[in-house]
């Protein structure tokens, strides 16, 4: 095992899907630094970071749901249309019936749940492939949006706009920074420390190998440095701006869903269904229920994303959400999920989404036209997944490792010669 691999294993855990994130995080850091240089420091400026978060939070919220859909072995093409449909419904009821904004949000989520139940029913209980169901949904709810809104835009009231365009308010003494953002950063730092400490304790309770202290130190110090830097940037922007509310919603969802997918029986079932549906069924997993809930959950998150977008742009229109499904799907695949299902993580998808977001943002800052941005994004998606496919063929998952491979003679891919094969078999017990 190479040193790189060993380090990666101790930093990210031993499982293959975790190991894949190593490469993604590395790529994200590289892209951020690249654009930081190319844009003369514009990328990491407070103003840009804030707009980055509020501009992409709804795509990342979609990526959370999409990851679960893809892990379960499905796809959802309808999320953009569902988001637009819910957006127009919510804008409409607030305008026509003067429904208070918080109630409208709840109604919006309810509409999302109903749409999700509709799609989940066809996928799980009738057995229509999700591709078809959601392709139908894509047309259906796009049409629904234009029908309800008369293909026109509907403005939304002030209070509602907060979930998309709001920031943490200014409170407390004047420190020159946004105090709540500082507090948020502090809480995150403490959380990182506690998480690592609890992880170590759990390993000890298991009587498993505990990583050496210096590994833990790296795993605490690096995130804290990043958090402190980000906190100061977000808190130190133009007065009146700070960390966006939509970013907080995203953060809470990431924490919840990361926990659900990793640590609950229900989350395990999603991976089991995607990894081997028949094996899952024969292990007592209720296949239909899992598929139904995954599809339904996606539409609820799409509803939320739609409302955040409407809030940010202060009105709901007929062109909202076009192409979102593709951005969300791209984020998930760039983040290391497998097309065949069963593999992928929430955090990976978020990192994948951020890679795409930073790429988009950085190119825009450089004044690259949207035509060329699209081309570059397409190439990046293709290369990221192609690299994964290549790695899989080689029986390894690490992006980094494959970057290193040409420089190492011992790992050069070679067809198994009979001599090698013989040696390998010699090691294992042989039947008579």
């Amino acid at each position, binding site marked *: 095992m190479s040193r790189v691999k060993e380090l990666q294993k101790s930093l990210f855990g031993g*499982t293959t899907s975790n190991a894949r994130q190593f490469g993604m995080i590395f790529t994200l850091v590289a892209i951020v630094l690249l654009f930081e240089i190319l844009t003369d420091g514009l990328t990491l400026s407070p103003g840009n970071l804030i707009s980055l978060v509020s501009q992409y939070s709804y795509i990342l919220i979609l990526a959370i749901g999409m990851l679960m859909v893809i892990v379960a072995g499905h796809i959802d093409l309808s999320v953009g249309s569902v988001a637009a449909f819910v957006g127009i419904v919510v804008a409409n009821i607030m305008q026509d019936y003067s429904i208070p904004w918080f109630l409208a949000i709840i109604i919006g989520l309810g509409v999302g749940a109903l749409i999700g139940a509709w799609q989940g029913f066809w996928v799980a209980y009738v057995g229509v492939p999700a591709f078809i169901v959601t392709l139908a949904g894509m047309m259906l709810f796009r049409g629904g949006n234009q029908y309800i809104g008369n293909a026109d835009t509907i403005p939304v009231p002030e209070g509602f706009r907060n979930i998309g365009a709001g920031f943490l308010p200014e409170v407390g003494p004047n420190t020159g920074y946004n105090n709540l953002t500082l507090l948020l950063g502090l809480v995150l730092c403490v959380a990182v420390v506690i998480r690592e400490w609890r992880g170590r304790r759990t390993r000890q309770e298991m009587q498993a190998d505990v990583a050496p202290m210096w590994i833990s130190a790296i795993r605490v110090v690096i995130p804290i440095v990043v958090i402190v830097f980000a906190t100061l940037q977000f808190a130190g922007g133009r007065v009146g701006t700070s960390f966006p509310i939509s970013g907080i919603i995203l953060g809470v969802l990431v924490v919840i869903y990361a926990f659900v997918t990793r640590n609950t*029986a229900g989350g395990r079932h999603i991976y089991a269904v995607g990894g081997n549906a028949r094996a899952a069924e024969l292990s007592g997993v209720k296949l239909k229920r899992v598929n139904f809930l995954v599809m339904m959950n996606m539409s609820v998150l799409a509803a939320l994303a739609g409302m955040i977008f409407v809030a940010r742009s202060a009105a709901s229109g007929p062109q909202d959400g076009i192409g979102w499904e593709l951005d969300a799907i791209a984020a998930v695949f760039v983040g290391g999920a497998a097309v065949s299902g069963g593999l992928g993580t929430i955090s990976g998808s978020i990192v994948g989404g951020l890679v795409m977001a930073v790429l988009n943002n950085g190119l825009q800052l450089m004044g690259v036209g949207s035509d060329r941005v699209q081309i570059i994004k397409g190439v990046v998606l293709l290369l990221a997944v192609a690299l994964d496919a290549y790695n899989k063929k080689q029986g390894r998952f690490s992006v980094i490792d494959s970057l290193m491979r040409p420089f190492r003679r011992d790992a050069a891919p070679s067809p198994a010669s009979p001599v090698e094969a013989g040696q390998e078999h010699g090691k294992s017990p042989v039947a008579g």
Partner: protein
Amino acid sequence: MSDAPVLLEMRSITKEFPGVKALSDVNLVVRSGEIHAIAGENGAGKSTLMKVLSGVYPYGTYSGEILYRGTESRFSDIRASEHAGIVIIHQELALVPGMSITENIFLGNEPGRGGVIDWKIANRRAIELMAQVGLEEDPDTLIKDIGVGKQQLVEIAKAFAKDVKLLILDEPTAALNEADSQHLLELLRGFKRQGITSIIISHKLNEIAQVADSITILRDGRTIETLDIKADGVDEDRIVRGMVGRELHSRFPDHTPNIGEVFFEVRDWTVRHPISAERLVAKHSSFTVRRGEIVGFAGLMGAGRTELAMSLFGRSYGTYVSGQIFKDGKEIVLKSVSDAIDHGLAYVSEDRKAIGLNLLDDIKTSMVSAKLSKISNHGVVDQVREYQAAESYRKSLRVKAPTVDEGVTKLSGGNQQKVVLAKWMFTDPDLLILDEPTRGIDVGAKYEIYGIIQRLADQGKGVIVISSELPELIGLCDRIYTVFEGTITGDILRKDADPELLMKQMTSVKKAQRS
């Protein structure tokens, strides 16, 4: 026949897979113009040998020599062997259901020029080839609209289209009814008269005795003997003896059974095939299991043992027609797998890679996956308890892996099987149904699995073992049911069980109830 020139000679073929030696120094001599049968139990190496011959396992992945028509052949893939006139027809037919007979016959071998198919030639040749194999159908008929017997004939016509010199048929009659089988065997005789050599792999020994000129018997990846059917006066009993005649005793751990009362009973269990509704995969099956008893289910491939087991396990196969399950004297109704698990049933499937395991999982995730509730609080998995549970199984079953964080794909077949066993032991079952528990694993690991099965029985659990290896059933089980075409045809105590008796029961519907 024995003076005809040798067409094919395979010399000391050895083929290894990680952890298993599938073929060990196998020799096969096939003479020109004969029908040569290859017999052996499941896993004896018949199919592997044919895959070596046809280039599925290319030259270089095995050791030994293939002499074909007097020269050494080194096939790099199937196309190479087909080019030389060796065509293999697999048990699973390789036909496209939505295409016509003609299209299938010439699939991958289309007559014409520059990629444009000359349908005139194709149709004319198709009619010739169909006549040659005795298939009377419109060549434009779609494959899905003709029966299995005729599909088999299309496969053979397809082989003829490739100018076959050596035709290999792997279990050609397994899916055919009696009349279609007879037709096929008659056809083989006809080919023989035309000078085409055939190799036939079959479990149906009566057919071998009927049609073959000579037979090579394989056992445990070795050639046991080659017999001339007529000169040596070979009959079915003789073949059976060659197939199963091995020392049984040393391969099983010593065990004194401690058998209690009947606690599990199935009455009149009848199940329909999931697709063809008129087919019954289990016909009025009734059986019992006692506490501490290891009960075997013997039968040929396709006899319906797996289907029976899976239909009992929460109706996970076929359509339920009738029947009752009693456990501890009370009737239980199992409509889903989770019902079955909750009532203490466990089913370890025959195909651990396809339906037994999620190959993306690590060891610990696999081991706890059938009863997550046992280590969860309000749906949240307690990772410490998960790890500890998995670790204790890793130690007690001696799974060869450094930690339980290891991915299951990295394990050998035997160790994967232990993980699956642990997965089901973790559900605290009263009755374990083990379907081919030692398929594809080596002798050492088999011994360990037998030990685990015996320990489970000693804990007072009932164990059902479905196996196609008769010696395994005889060595391991306290009692054996034989199954033939969905019907339980025999109930044989260990002391009465011998391979020949079992083989007879497995191939006929005669009831041989023990008094």
